[in-house]
């Protein structure tokens, strides 16, 4: 057994798949950043709001005024350098840091695929992705045709984890037996040409989409791994992601996953891709130069491998941390993020904050639009950690205005996956006396229903 493991970690393979992945990833990230900027989202999401929701432990990460643009410039430039393989190690470290900083500035914008990008870029810091077909090789006058097989496999493993865990998360009664939330989302796409008025309205279609989505997520990694089903699987990947892109506003994510899935193919395919890039560059009279070749070896492979092993074990365990909390996960959302739970919930809420002076027995309500953007208010009203953080922010605000003594309560209602709205947070708990922690939040009222499953 140990022999096999050792043999595996000594196995070498062509460096082309990782080089193609690096180029694809870098370019997609550059496009993402440009797109984000051009839509005016930097202002709307990070500069305009007066208040930002922080991740527990990362309260010190905030937008830094107009300097925030600089972070995006840094992020975009480092993505470009990653694609070019120019100062690769520095570039990928800067990309990981700047991108992660952007994501940590406000958890309102949390998306699983942003988290995925942070993880991939973190992993890539330790991979020889610039060993082949990069500008670095021109400067060093040395390139490596072979790299350890596991470095390519680690990317595959991360992709497989994302899909497989997304599939596991779909094994619940709402998704499989109520076709929720697709039953709400699909009929509302009545405006789609050809299929909007009929197919999208069929209950059987909602179930078919739920079940095939679940099966797709669970099995696609294996179909991609197995050579005989690979082309078929890739066709599925393209179809699935393009179809979801048509249905839902999911930005760049589908394209990133399609490009990412190429890593499962044989090096032959990647050499072909590189050849076509070379052909394209020839149009601009950029010709490949002959460079000496060698075999890439890590100076300290054991440290890197065991470090990444820990990384992957954490990745496998983290999505299950919800078992440490009381049910219902979808309702309480303790352990919901960072777990590849994608598109599982239609959740809407309403939170009315009440500022009380206990001595004079007077109170007033808060107009949330005074402090939050509509996007922030929407996210806040369905997530307990947002509600708590906002209550403390309100406490500071009103204390500064001289309102003391002060207590803050919330009257809130949430509707989940087609259920009727019901009270969400205990309206009799002074939120200023509650603090964020990893402990279960005792002041969340229970959901009057069971959602069975993983």
């Amino acid at each position, binding site marked *: 057994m140990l022999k096999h493991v050792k043999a595996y970690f000594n196995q070498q393979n062509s460096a082309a798949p990782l080089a193609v992945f690096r180029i694809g990833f870098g370019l997609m990230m550059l496009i993402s950043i440009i797109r984000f900027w051009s839509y005016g989202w930097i202002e709307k999401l990070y500069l305009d709001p007066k208040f930002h929701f922080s991740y527990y432990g990362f309260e010190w990460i905030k937008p830094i005024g107009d300097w925030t643009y600089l972070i995006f410039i840094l992020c975009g430039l480092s993505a470009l350098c990653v694609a070019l393989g120019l100062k690769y190690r520095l570039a990928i470290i800067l990309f990981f840091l700047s991108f992660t900083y952007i994501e940590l500035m406000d958890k309102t914008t949390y998306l699983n695929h942003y988290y995925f990008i942070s993880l991939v870029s973190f992993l890539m810091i330790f991979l020889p992705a610039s060993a082949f077909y990069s500008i670095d090789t021109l400067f060093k006058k040395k390139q490596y045709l072979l790299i350890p097989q596991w470095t390519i496999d680690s990317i595959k493993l991360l992709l497989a984890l994302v899909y497989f865990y997304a599939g596991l998360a779909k094994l619940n009664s709402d998704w499989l037996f109520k076709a929720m939330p697709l039953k709400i989302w699909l009929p509302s796409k009545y405006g789609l040409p050809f299929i909007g008025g*009929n197919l999208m309205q069929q209950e059987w279609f909602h179930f078919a989409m739920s079940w095939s989505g679940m099966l797709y997520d669970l099995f696609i990694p294996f179909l991609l791994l197995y050579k005989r089903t690979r082309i078929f699987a890739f066709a599925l990947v393209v179809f699935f992601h393009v179809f979801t892109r048509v249905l839902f506003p999911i930005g760049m994510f589908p394209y990133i996953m399609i490009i990412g899935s190429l890593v499962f193919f044989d090096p032959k395919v990647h050499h072909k891709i590189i050849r076509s890039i070379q052909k394209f560059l020839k149009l601009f009279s950029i010709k490949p130069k002959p460079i000496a070749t060698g075999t890439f070896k890590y100076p300290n492979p054991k440290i890197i491998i065991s470090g990444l092993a820990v990384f992957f074990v954490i990745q496998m365990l983290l999505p299950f941390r919800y078992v440490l909390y009381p049910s219902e996960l979808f309702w309480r959302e303790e352990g919901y993020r960072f777990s590849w739970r994608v598109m599982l919930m239609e959740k809407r809420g309403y939170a009315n904050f009440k500022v009380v002076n206990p001595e004079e027995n007077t109170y*007033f309500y808060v107009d949330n639009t005074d402090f939050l953007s509509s996007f922030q208010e929407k996210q806040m009203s369905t997530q307990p950690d947002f509600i708590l953080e906002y209550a403390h922010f309100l406490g500071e605000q009103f204390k500064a205005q001289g309102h003391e003594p002060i207590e803050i309560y919330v009257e809130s209602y949430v509707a989940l996956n087609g259920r009727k709205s019901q009270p969400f947070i205990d309206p009799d708990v002074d939120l200023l006396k509650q603090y964020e922690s990893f402990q279960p939040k005792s002041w969340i009222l229970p959901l009057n229903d069971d959602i069975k499953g993983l």
Partner: protein
Amino acid sequence: MIKRTFLALFTGVIFMFSCSSDDTSGGTDNQTDNFDRSAMLVNWADNIIIPVYEDLNSKLEILAAEKEVFIAEPTPTNLFSLRTAWQDAYKVWQYAEMFNVGMAENINYIFQMNVYPTNVQDIQNNIESQDYDLSSVNNNDAVGFPALDYMLYGVGSTETEVVDFYTTSASADKRKIYLSDLTDRMQSLTQTVLEDWKNGYRDTFVSSTDNTATGSINLVVNDFIYYYEKGFRANKFGIPAGVFSQNPLPDRVEAYYTYDFSKVLALEAMTAVQDFFNGRAYQSGSDGRSLADYLNSINGSEDLSTSITSQYAAARTKINTLNDSFAEQVNTNNVAMTETFDSIQLAVVLLKVDMLQALDISVDYVDADGD
């Protein structure tokens, strides 16, 4: 082998799509999208929105005419007619305030018609300087119905005092000009909005049925909820009752200077909300395609429209118990006022959470990516 499985699957998918589009021609399947959104938009436009603007416009024309009579001859009798015309128009306005789409949105119509409390200082400065741009955002609280409320009721405590305001003072002429400009502007703004609806926007509006951020249903439903929560619930009840401040603010009621008119307006507004939800025609009172019907067409949301309707009825019952003057109500028994607010509030949850979930209408205007 691979090619064959791929081909088989591909044809399978194509087959599935083509089959299902044929299904609907049978007409037996009740799961097809059988709610006629276009008919709902036509009902909103032709039977509610345009008739409301038409009525408002004609009431404002009468108001402008009465204003001319009053300016020519400021007497208590003419003041009485002018006040009546203002009250009639203000009541109709309650049906128009919720529609902030098309030209109304472009020209900031609502904010030039009913921002209160009106700013007496700004009005006086405008009158004295005679140099004002009534369309300026800075003057939003010095124009419209609330400014006329002050000009017709607030400038004196008796009718004679009000008439004196336009006759005896050295500034009398300036005051008449401001009164005249205010009134004319309300009428011309309304005319602009109405004409836009009649000359093309109506067709654009009823044909935009898609569930997108700019689709007519999304725009109007968002406006409707925003109005119910802000223009109706907060402005008419919550703010004067002090639910958003440390103390009650009785001088923030609508038509503060008219004194006994705030309840009349609030009841008109309540009717406007109920009628819109039920698709009731403004003129004939007959029911057409409505939000209630839309909810009823969705599996599992049938009883939601009933809950909303009965919550409206409960709120109306509460409003009926209030004093004709909300300022008086706040001063004497504010608990009744806050209880009314709470009753109105319960429908906000049904509209904003349950209804928007059922219709899958997005509320966030920041068009960010989802997962």
